[in-house]
């Protein structure tokens, strides 16, 4: 089972993403509510894939992405974003985000991205 870390400051989003993924047999091994925690949990849990919100307190998703990629250049990080954040998303892509999902996204979209990225 592929192991996922969900980083988002909104517990609603964490819950939504986790529920969608669990249905498709992904294992949610951790959740984090800001960038700092996200980076820490990444190092601790070494997940196969991370979903990362961009706008978060303490440390933004982009900064967290940078730090995670620095620690593990092969990290699979998917950004969770919303309309209006084009420039931030571009920055994320430049910094090695594997893909991004634009809220509101559908379950299939999330799962497709996961499967494709993990080569399932």
């Amino acid at each position, binding site marked *: 089972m592929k192991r996922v870390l969900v980083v988002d400051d909104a517990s609603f989003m964490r819950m939504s993403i986790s*529920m969608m993924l669990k249905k498709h047999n992904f294992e949610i091994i951790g959740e984090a509510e800001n960038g700092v925690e996200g980076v820490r949990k990444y190092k601790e849990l070494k997940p196969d894939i991370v979903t990362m919100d961009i706008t978060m307190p303490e440390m933004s998703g*982009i900064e967290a992405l940078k730090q995670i990629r620095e620690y593990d250049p092969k990290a699979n990080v998917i950004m969770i974003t919303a309309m*209006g954040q084009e*420039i*931030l998303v571009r920055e994320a892509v430049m910094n090695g985000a594997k893909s991004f999902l634009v*809220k*509101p996204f559908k379950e299939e*979209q999330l799962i497709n*991205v996961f499967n494709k990225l993990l080569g399932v």
Partner: protein
Amino acid sequence: MAGQYGNEPMMEMFLFETSQLIEQLEQLIISCEKSDHYTEDTINEIFRIMHTIKGSSAMMMQDSITAISHSMEDLFYFLRENKQKVVDNSAISDLVLEGVDLIKEELEKLKNGEKADGNTSELQDRIKNFLSDLKVDTSSEAAAERKNLENEKQQYYLSMDKKKNDASKYKNAFKATIRYEEDCEMENIRAYTIVHNVYDITDEFFHIPENLIDDDESAKKIRQEGFQIYLKTDSSYEEVREFFMQTLFLKELKLDQIENSEYDQLRDAKKKITDKEKFISSKDFEEHSEGNKETQAMSLKQNVISVNMTKLDKLMDLVGEMVISEDMVIQNPDLKGLELENFQKAARQLQKISSEIQDIVMSIRMVPLSATFLKMHRIVRDMSKKLGKKVDLKIIGEETEVDKNVIEHISDPIIHLVRNAIDHGIEFPEERLEKNKPETGTVTLEAKNAGNDVLVIVKDDGRGLNKEKILKKARENGLLYKAEEEMSEREIYNMIFLPGFSTKDNVTEFSGRGVGMDVVVKNIETIGGSVSIDSTPDKGSVITLKIPLTLAIIDGMNIRVGSSYYTIPTISIRESFKPQENDIFSDPNGNEMIMVRGQCYPILRLHELLKVKTDITRFNDGIITIAEQDERTVCIFSDELIGQQQVVVKALPEYIRRLNKTKALAGCTLLGDGSISLILDITGLANLKGLA
């Protein structure tokens, strides 16, 4: 409250979190308004809140909430990017608070299982207009900057062009057309992802549309015509195809090999070379990432989980049942007269643990009043603005905790009292100055613990109650229950709580609405509390709500009348004794009275009042219990005392409540042997007798 939106944990979480964020937002706005300044941190925080709400509501497909939070997000995005700008803070506060109200309404609809279908377009337009006005103001300053930026860009392009022209080292040329799945959104950025990755196979390429980031139209163009990328590379067709197939959200890929010459032609025709995005003012990025780092405003680390309220209610019920069954076991009639040392020991242990559980369950349900109190800032703000009065709200003891159910019942009454205080209590600034009072009135909201009760005090330094006016009104409405001259000041003031009483000459927008103080009293009484009032002309009024800490379990004294059992809350019992027949005398109206230590009390025969058959009607055979609540005393005559016990208060069933016109009953409970006991309402009994 919770749980009625069924088993939709997502919806529940959405409502919970969004309501919390909205409340947080409201507080932020109000505190900013007070200091008349939006700090950078707060702007970031507000932006983040709106952003989160927008995202979550979009996921839940609540378009109205998404729309309104989106336009507010835009507004605060602008404010964040234009920090030095002087703006009309109060206009912003008004707009945002309107938005907050709208979202609240929509959330309320969702909570009630309705559709959130509010019309947001009007407010959206206003926010948009406000924003474009702001933008016009800044545009002149910005124009100069933009020009500089463009010049810089131009230079980059030139250098890039040069490099491109020199490079023609690749053998193969391809044309790829990529179409994305519908509603994958941000097609332009997705295309940019390809551009970013295509460096893995080549550095010679260009694409249409060429400006992927700054041109909002590019996403639309890609949606309609697909994203075209031309490249030269050493990789084979298969390899290039493999590369493009990795694209996420890919719907269709069309890959053709073309002649090198064709590539050059097309490129020259296009002239402008593609991958300049890479160079677009790296300055721009820095600003953004900085902006994000700043989004650090207060986020409390919480080590808590949220629990569905219905579960807590259930737990409370179960603990109640447990207390009852514990009594059933320990006081089981089968055990009577037996010497059971070990059993007694074990029973004591059980009692100890169960009372601990009870305490914990109670404390779980305790919530500080702060949220309710802080809401009042908004009310004070709105009202003082509308009425042109100057009012300060002072909050004391907001950390005081009460049961969650209690909070739900006292929130509306407090709002009503605060509104009343501002509307009718606090004078207009000129009037206050004439009276030698500070121009700004003060409304104080205070909470404190007092034994088993919590006191909530709403105090204002306004004009106070007008005795004459109250008496006049009472006369008009036939509410006088005794001679005017016999009434104490307090009794006169208390008349404003009577149903059908209202001194308002004209109903105002705020405290009118046809509900009077009687509704406040009713609400407080349903949870076993009481309301009292004190007032001094031109000094102000004080209204005190006395609220039980918790509703569910009380210490009670069980008494028997005939074959019925009643429970008196132990806390209100002063003493019980066997009366002597000759202590009793009658007053001129034939009421039976008893003299206790020089004080006369009328006697209330429970069997008469509640029409219960009993053999014990002579005072010598029964027992008298003196109970006191809210400075009112009653002497209750019953057959015998059964004993003290913790009882779980249950609401009276509807059909008894309808019969309970006398208000002598507060609730009911189950006794250890499974029989039902009715809980007496001491205040109700005292009122019944018209006793002071």
